[in-house]
Structures are given as structure tokens and as C-alpha cells.
């Protein structure tokens, strides 16, 4: 296997993917074709045990459980009420409801495993209020699209689970590592909103037509009640993992039970409700697990064929410093993220890239946070940016798509800057998981 053969394989794969064949099929087909060329039919004999091995992996059980958890909280309407509660607290800061957008996304992100669900829910509640108060569309839409991406960085996160299983890294450590970067990125977004608002005001451009009215403290405190479910679920998940009481799968199970109690208390528990949650969970699980199964099948060929090794050696031959390597990867993921959906990007790159970066002395837990940050970026970069479409779809004023893109650009820049900060200061991600030991 030379680097040329591998590039050829990669090109064929990209071609098949881009004409729109299912990602999982393309991966398996390539794995089988490559394996047959390298090893002949004996390879097929090993695919079965690999397939059963992945399907029967108890760590991956956390994926459907976290998806179900997010569905329970989202579809019971708890997320909608969180927005109202937060707006009482954040509405009077410079930038007003835009903070609420980001804050709600961050809070909801902590309970939901998915960014699209986060952006859609918060967007639906937020946009009418924002339009009514005369916020500039691009600012509103941008804050929603970017805020929605926080869902995959702040745990629980299905994307971190996928990374953990593909890179053989502890999911518990990844979750713990995601907390500080997630909170800092949220804070960074809020600082940006405040700064931009102050700057607009100085130039005599108002940022909101009507500022929020002062709310009595009592009402504010009462609003906090609506934050309880999300806060409890987050505390259970992170607390049990951080204290070492539970594995990620166990923490997901505990959280599902507690969320179910909240839903029941809200009087929302019904067969129709569960039916919807189950259908969505099954659909998303099937989609994610098929891709993961395909990725593991392809990995056997990649590992046995020495492809990972060849690529690692080739990269090592370039003589990059770790920092230069990471900046090169940033560019690589930025470009890939423009055209690929996030999950496909992850499963296709992680098996090859993680050995390269660990060989360069980079911590695989840290790199998981890096990959998820780059995935967040991919969600708000056109032409394929899931969150951009979601937010555009939620708005009802019929404005152009370019508003969303324009509004999201500053956040994309902030994410890149934050990633660079993380490169020079890896402790941001690693301090908390290290403090466990």
C-alpha cells in the first residue's frame, strides 16, 4: 500500500459519497473491496465477529439512551419553558434576548445529545419574540445557529460517544473534558454579543427596538423552577460520572428514569408521547449505529492493510511540529466540514487521524474535544451546514438564507479562535479530567 493507492481509494470513496449513495454502504463496500484485494476471502470470515462485537458493545448502549433522554425532555415541552425562564434573567444585558438564545442552547445542550434538536426547539420559541422586539435578523439567526452547536460539546454528547468508541478513549473522561470548553465557548459567545451591542449603541445604532422591561425578583426566582429539570438531568449525568459512581451508560439510564419522572409530573406522559419519542430514538439510533458498524468493518481493512500506518508514516515524514499538525488538521476539518455532515466526517477521519496525533504526542482525550469543536464549526459553514438550514427553516419572515450565513460568520471565527486557544492551552480541556486522578 503506497500513499498513492490510498489517495486513489479515498478519491473513489469521495466520488461515491458525493453522488449521494448511503455513507454506510460506501464504507463497507470499500472495506470489503480493499480487504479482498489485500487478503482474499479470509477477510470476510472476520467481518462477522467484528460486526457482532460492535453491536454487542455495552459502551455503545449509551447512545440510544442519551438520544431517548433528549427526546423525552424536548418533546415534553420542558425546553420551551426554559427559554422563558432564562429571558427573565438575561434579557436586560446589552444584547438582550440574544443572550437568552445562547444561554438556552447551552442549557438544553447539556441534556440533549443532538444539536439540530436544540436549534430547532430554541429557534421556534425564540424567533417570534425576537422579531416582535425588532432584533436584526442576521444577529438573531446567527446566535441561534451557533448556540445550537453547543449541544455536541457540552455533555451528554452523542458525538463524544462516537469519538470514544472509535478512538478507544474513555467516554467518561471525554464528557468531563467537554464541560469547561463548553462553558467557555458559551461565555465567549455572550461576550461577543455584549461587545457587539455596546459597539452598535456607541455608533448610534440600536441593537433592539424595545428593551425588556424590568422583572420583579420574585418572578425571576419563580422562573428558576423551569430550569430544574435540565439542571437535575445534567447534574445526574455529570455528577455520577465525575464521582465515579456510574459509567456513562449507567448515568444515561439514571437520567432517563429521572426525566421520565419529570415528564410524568408535568402530566405529559402518554402513549402518544412515548410513541413519538420511541420512533425518533429508533430512527436516529438506526442511522448512527449503521454508520458505526460500517466504520468498524472498514477499520479492519484499514488496520490490517497497514493503511493507518502508511498515512501516519507519511504525515510523520512531513516533519510537522504538533502545533503545525493541529493547524493543518484545523484547515482539513474546516474544508471537510463545509461539504460533509458531521457524523460521516467523524467516522471517516477518526480511525486514521487519531493514531497520527497520538504518535505526535497529542492527548487523545484532548483531540476528542478538538474534533467535536471542528464538527460544531462544520454545522454552521455553508454549503452543508445543518444548523444553518434548521434556523432558516424555523424563521417565518421569509428573509434570504444569506442572513443566516452572515450572522453565523462571527461565531465561526470565534470557534476557530477558541480552537487555536485550546491548542496553545490544552489544560482548558484536560485539567478537569486530570483532576479526577
Amino acid at each position, binding site marked *: 500500500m503506497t500513499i498513492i493507492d490510498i489517495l486513489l481509494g479515498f478519491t473513489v470513496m469521495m466520488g461515491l459519497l458525493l453522488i449521494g449513495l448511503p455513507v454506510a454502504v460506501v464504507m463497507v463496500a470499500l472495506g470489503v473491496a480493499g480487504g479482498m484485494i489485500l487478503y482474499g476471502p479470509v477477510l470476510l*470470515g*472476520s467481518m462477522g465477529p*467484528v460486526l457482532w462485537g460492535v453491536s454487542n458493545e455495552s459502551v455503545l448502549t449509551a447512545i440510544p439512551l442519551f438520544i431517548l433522554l433528549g427526546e423525552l425532555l424536548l418533546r415534553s415541552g420542558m425546553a420551551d419553558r426554559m427559554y422563558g425562564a432564562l429571558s427573565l434573567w438575561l434579557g436586560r444585558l446589552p444584547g438582550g434576548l440574544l443572550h437568552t438564545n445562547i444561554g438556552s442552547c447551552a442549557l438544553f445542550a447539556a441534556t440533549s445529545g443532538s444539536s439540530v434538536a436544540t436549534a430547532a426547539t430554541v429557534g421556534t420559541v425564540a424567533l417570534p419574540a425576537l422579531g416582535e422586539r425588532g432584533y436584526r435578523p442576521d444577529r438573531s439567526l446567527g446566535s441561534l445557529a451557533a448556540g445550537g452547536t453547543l449541544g455536541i460539546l457540552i455533555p451528554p454528547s452523542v458525538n463524544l460517544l462516537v469519538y470514544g468508541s472509535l478512538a478507544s478513549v*474513555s467516554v467518561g473522561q471525554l464528557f468531563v473534558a467537554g464541560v469547561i470548553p463548553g462553558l467557555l465557548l458559551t461565555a465567549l459567545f455572550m461576550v461577543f454579543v455584549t461587545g457587539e451591542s455596546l459597539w452598535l449603541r456607541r455608533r448610534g445604532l440600536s441593537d433592539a427596538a424595545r428593551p425588556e422591561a424590568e422583572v420583579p425578583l420574585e418572578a425571576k426566582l419563580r422562573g428558576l423552577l423551569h430550569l430544574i429539570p435540565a439542571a437535575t438531568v445534567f447534574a445526574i449525568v455529570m455528577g455520577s460520572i465525575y464521582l465515579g459512581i456510574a459509567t456513562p451508560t449507567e448515568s444515561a439510564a439514571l437520567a432517563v428514569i429521572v426525566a421520565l419522572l419529570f415528564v410524568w409530573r408535568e402530566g405529559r406522559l402518554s402513549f402518544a408521547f412515548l410513541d413519538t419519542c420511541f420512533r425518533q430514538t429508533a430512527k436516529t439510533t438506526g442511522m448512527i449505529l449503521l454508520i458505526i458498524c460500517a466504520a468498524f468493518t472498514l477499520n*479492519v481493512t484499514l*488496520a*490490517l492493510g497497514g493503511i493507518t500506518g502508511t498515512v501516519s508514516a507519511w504525515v510523520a515524514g512531513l516533519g510537522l511540529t504538533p502545533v503545525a499538525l493541529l493547524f493543518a488538521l484545523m484547515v482539513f476539518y474546516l474544508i471537510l466540514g463545509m461539504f460533509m455532515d458531521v457524523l460521516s466526517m467523524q467516522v471517516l477521519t477518526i480511525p486514521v487521524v487519531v493514531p497520527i496525533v497520538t504518535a505526535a504526542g497529542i492527548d487523545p482525550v484532548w483531540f476528542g474535544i478538538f474534533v467535536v469543536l471542528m464538527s460544531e464549526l462544520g454545522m454552521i459553514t455553508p454549503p452543508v451546514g445543518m444548523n444553518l438550514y434548521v434556523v432558516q427553516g424555523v424563521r417565518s419572515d421569509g428573509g434570504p438564507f444569506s442572513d443566516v450565513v452572515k450572522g453565523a460568520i462571527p461565531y465561526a471565527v470565534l470557534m476557530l479562535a477558541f480552537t487555536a486557544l485550546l491548542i496553545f492551552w490544552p489544560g482548558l480541556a484536560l485539567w478537569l479530567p486530570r483532576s479526577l486522578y
Partner: protein
Amino acid sequence: RVMGQPVATGLIQKTVEQPFFENFAEETGLDLTADYQPVDVTGIKDTEQLRILKGGLFDIVSLRLSQVSRDEPAILGLDLVGLNPDYATGKRTVEEFAPQVDARLQEKFNTKLLGVWPFGPQVLFCEPEIASLADLKGLKVRVYDQNLANFISLVGGTPVPLGFAEVQQSLARGVVDCAVTGPSSANSAGWPEVTSYMMPIAFQLAMNGYGINLDTWNKLSPEEQEKLQAAFDRLTDRIWTYSEELFVDAVSCNTGGETCETGTKYDLTLVEPSQADIDLIGTAVTDVSFPAWQETCDAVSPDCSASWMETVGMHYQF
């Protein structure tokens, strides 16, 4: 093509196994090279090793015997809890019972067993003070398999199955009070930082072995087969010796002894097992581990435990 032990298992993999396969031609005197890949790098689960070996994707596999016993329970007869309290007994067990295991592997998995070796005694680490095994009553003890779980239940402890990677944190947070593993692995995983007592009594020896696909084996001429077998005999002998040195050194490291070459120095309290403890572990064979194993093993092939009784079982009073 060779599948090796996982990278994370430590020094035996790194300093003995991997170099052997990297210098395969020199070691065996045959004109062959080995493409060596640790099992975790291949993305294949260790429980599937026998099936993979039979399929022929790999020629030689460094078998993790406890994991692959799922497909061939007879293998466990080499390392029942309490059966091998020290290296000498372990070696005797292997000499007596490995031929039976080999026969079963040849018949069912098209695999010849080239040799068996131990990671080393699996010993007890505890945070609460213990003076004897009887003190395990009421404590939560990390176990790595069902065999050991049965024994822990027998002495009144609560067995908690945990993956190796989770144990250190679980000990630190009090999720478990005690844990069982080899002293060298415990040292490199930092267990002594979160425990206070160590009892060097061998629950098991953690046996592993080398299997070769019979098709590959039969392609070799008789002289080549002889050379290969001799090379693996040398390799397993080397590992037996090294494993014992490693064990002595690691115990010394963990308990603040004079010598410590392979790990970090800690100062655990060494709890010498009493004769009662050694007898207790000895009774584990007749009382728990053999009966449980007999049931599983005979369900697969009726003469399984009989062949064990005729060999290893001779040393016990049933």
C-alpha cells in the same frame, strides 16, 4: 500475520513478545517475517480471537485464554481460581493439561497450541485494612471474571465486575474497596496511590498462549515445524522467567522494598497471607471453581472435566 497482546497490557508485550515477532527470522532460524499487530490496533475484540484464527486471517495469535474461553471452556481448566498458587504449580498444570487443550483446539478451531505462559499472579489490593481473606466479608471487590466472582462471594465479599481502565478511579471514589490484578499492571495504573494494603496471594496466574492456524503449520516442513516449536518454547520459557522476575520486582516496588526497577516506588503495607488463607484459596478449587467449570465445560463436551480429573485433578481430594 500475527495478532499480539493489547499494547496496554504492559511490559511482557513490549519487552518480550513484540521484539520476538519483530526479529522473527532470527529467533526462529526460518526464512519468515512476521507482520505483528496488537489486537487492540486491529479493532477486533479479543473474545473473537479463536474464530479469527480458525478463519485464517491471522497465522499466529497471542490468545487471551480467559477471553476466548467463551468458545472453548476447556481452556479455563488451565487456570481455575486457586489452582495455581505459585509459578511452580502453574508450570505443572500447564505441562499436564495443555496437551488436552491443544487437542481440543486442533479439533474445533483448526489451531495448534504452541505454548502457554502467565501474566503472573493476580493479587489483592485494598484500601480498608485487611489482615486475612476473611476480612473481605462485606467489602466490594473488583473482579475480572465469573470464576473470581464466585470465589469472592464464597468468602462473603461483593464482586463488582469492572473494566481495568475504570478500576483506579473506582477505588479512589470508594465505588469498590478492593481489586484484584497483577502487581505490575497495578503499579503502572497507579492503584497503589488509591489503596493501602496488598496481599500477594495468587488467585489465578492469568494464562495466555500462542496458537497457530493448522493450515499454516502444515505448510511447513517437519524440520521447519521443529524449529518453530523450539523458538516458541524458548519464547514461553523466557516469558515464564521474566514474568516471575517482574512479579518479584513489582511486589517490591509497591511495598517500598529495596529494589524497584520496573515501576514506581510506593509504600503499601504488605499483608502476608496466612496458612489459613492459602488453604482457603486451595479449597476454592474443590468447592467453587471446579464444580462451576465442570458444569459449563461438560455441557459442551461430556468428557471435558474427566480428562482434567485424570491429570491436574489427581493432586486434589474430591
